[in-house]
């Protein structure tokens, strides 16, 4: 009995060492390089900006405690004082919403077709959706700079048609339209995947039952497939909406001078004007937006999941 007890004890001791050998290194690394930097960002948003960018020094070169010492809500007040920033936030949400909607409209039929295809084709069809992600992000945007550029065959075609109709020629590139195309192109696979994963799990018996009860194909879709697919729709929407909200490279490369989103604003505060507190405040607001979207998605998913059992 004692021997057994000792064995168990030794066992748990050994396990505890093994446990912390496993948990320790990744936890420590991410505490230092993810959690602490996030906290630093919060503190930075509450500090005074420096005269030449960055932060105000706590100790002046003369050795005195500077006026910039201490915390302030200045950056947030500045953010609220100018309606321009609210507009940019609103516009970013608008772009994210429209991108998500277009992705959903394009992805749903595709995901549905994949689930209805023969089993041996399904993996290949999914792989073909994901594969473009393997190409560099910049390359994918660059491709649209070529396609929408003024010398491209597409631009020529559209402008020839327009000139026949007597309308002034259009520039496709460097416009809100180009930004939207780029956003949809880069994020589309993220919508298809969760949709397919959800649709694949549906029991076909449900559709047969609905048909036996006299439901038309349209009714079968809206009363059976669509409500059951809502968790997939929400998951895909979050995966598209959140990264679009923080995107700065696509507006910068495909958009015109007026197509500024939150991401561009943040980028400029760190690599342009160097107003760190303001840039951090913008980042904090973006973080809060992302967290609330993630929370809402989780809530909606639970709601739609609960409905399934209630009915």
């Amino acid at each position, binding site marked *: 009995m004692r021997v057994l007890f000792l064995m168990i004890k030794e066992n748990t001791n050994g396990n505890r060492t093994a446990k912390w050998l496993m948990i320790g290194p990744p936890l420590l690394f991410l505490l230092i390089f993810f959690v602490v930097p996030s906290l630093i*960002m919060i503190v930075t948003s509450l500090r005074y900006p420096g005269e030449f960018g960055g932060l105000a020094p706590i100790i002046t070169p003369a050795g005195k405690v500077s006026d910039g010492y201490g915390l302030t809500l200045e950056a947030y007040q500045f953010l609220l004082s100018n309606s321009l920033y609210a507009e940019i936030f609103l516009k970013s949400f608008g772009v994210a919403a429209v991108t998500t909607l277009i992705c959903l409209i394009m992805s749903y039929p595709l995901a549905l077709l994949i689930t209805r295809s023969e089993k041996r084709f399904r993996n290949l069809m999914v792989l073909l959706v994901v594969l473009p992600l393997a190409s560099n992000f910049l390359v994918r945007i660059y491709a649209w700079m070529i396609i929408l550029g003024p010398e491209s065959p597409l631009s020529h075609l559209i402008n020839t048609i327009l000139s026949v109709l007597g309308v002034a020629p259009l520039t496709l590139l460097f416009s809100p339209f180009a930004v939207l195309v780029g956003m949809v192109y880069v994020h589309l696979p993220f919508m298809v995947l969760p949709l397919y994963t959800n649709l694949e799990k549906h029991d076909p018996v449900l559709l047969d039952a609905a048909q036996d009860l006299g439901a038309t194909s349209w009714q079968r879709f809206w009363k059976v497939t669509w409500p059951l697919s809502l968790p997939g729709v929400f998951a895909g929407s979050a995966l598209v909406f959140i990264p679009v909200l923080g995107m700065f490279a696509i507006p910068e490369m495909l958009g015109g001078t007026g197509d500024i989103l939150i991401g561009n604003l943040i980028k400029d505060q760190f690599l342009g004007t160097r107003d760190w507190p303001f840039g951090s405040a913008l980042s904090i607001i973006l973080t809060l937006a992302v967290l609330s979207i993630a929370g809402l998605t989780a809530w909606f998913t639970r709601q739609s999941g609960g409905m399934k059992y209630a009915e």
Partner: protein
Amino acid sequence: MRNRNFRLRIVATLVYAFLYIPLVIVVAYSFNNSRLNAEWVGFTLFWYETLFNNKEMLVAARNSLIIALSASILATALGTMAGLAIHRYKLKVLPIIVLSPVATPEILLGVSLLLFFLQVLNLTLGMISIIIAHTTFCIGFVAIIVRSRLQGMDWSIFEAARDLGASPWQCFHLITLPLIMPAVVAGALMSFTLSIDDFVITFFTKGVGEPILPIQIYTMIKTAVTPEVNAISTLLMLLTLAMIIIATKLDSGVLRGEVSR
């Protein structure tokens, strides 16, 4: 029903075309004998020649390879531990900390690391800061791949080994590690491609010194667009494609081997 699928098929074909035509165009114009990405003039390898004579581009490629190798080795080691720990121990905090960097918009990771490196570590931005930044978000991907492989496994084999007197270390390197090896290698390859392709986080943590591949491509696109960009894009595409194919082959290939055993 047939009519419905027919309509779906048309939409699906259009979506696939939308996904692939842009990439085909980039590749095709890399062989075009014209400075403009407009008309097809004739076949040439001139742009690849220019590329291989571009000293700065070669340095950038070397730097990016060093960064991707270092970051993927670090991330694989840490991510494997995290994946094992998340699967083995019911912890609340670890999964949140490991997976958050994957779900966070890249710009936020970039900004917070930039502030951290400059304010707290007083580090001059460069290769080291980029390697750390890339490791931060790659850990999560490796952990996900390793954990999903562990999920399909029967935990009783580990208990059997322990009952038969294997030490925790023996149990790990004789049983656990060989079993998860394909996932570990797949995770390493994924990390490598994520690192070599990353633009946003690199952009924030790069500093001013060494040229890095994605930044170099970005500057080229922003300033003078020539088919040289198409050439480097095509080569990068081939590299990542190969990596991903190997990764998927590895994971599913050994899965089949396991069934036969």
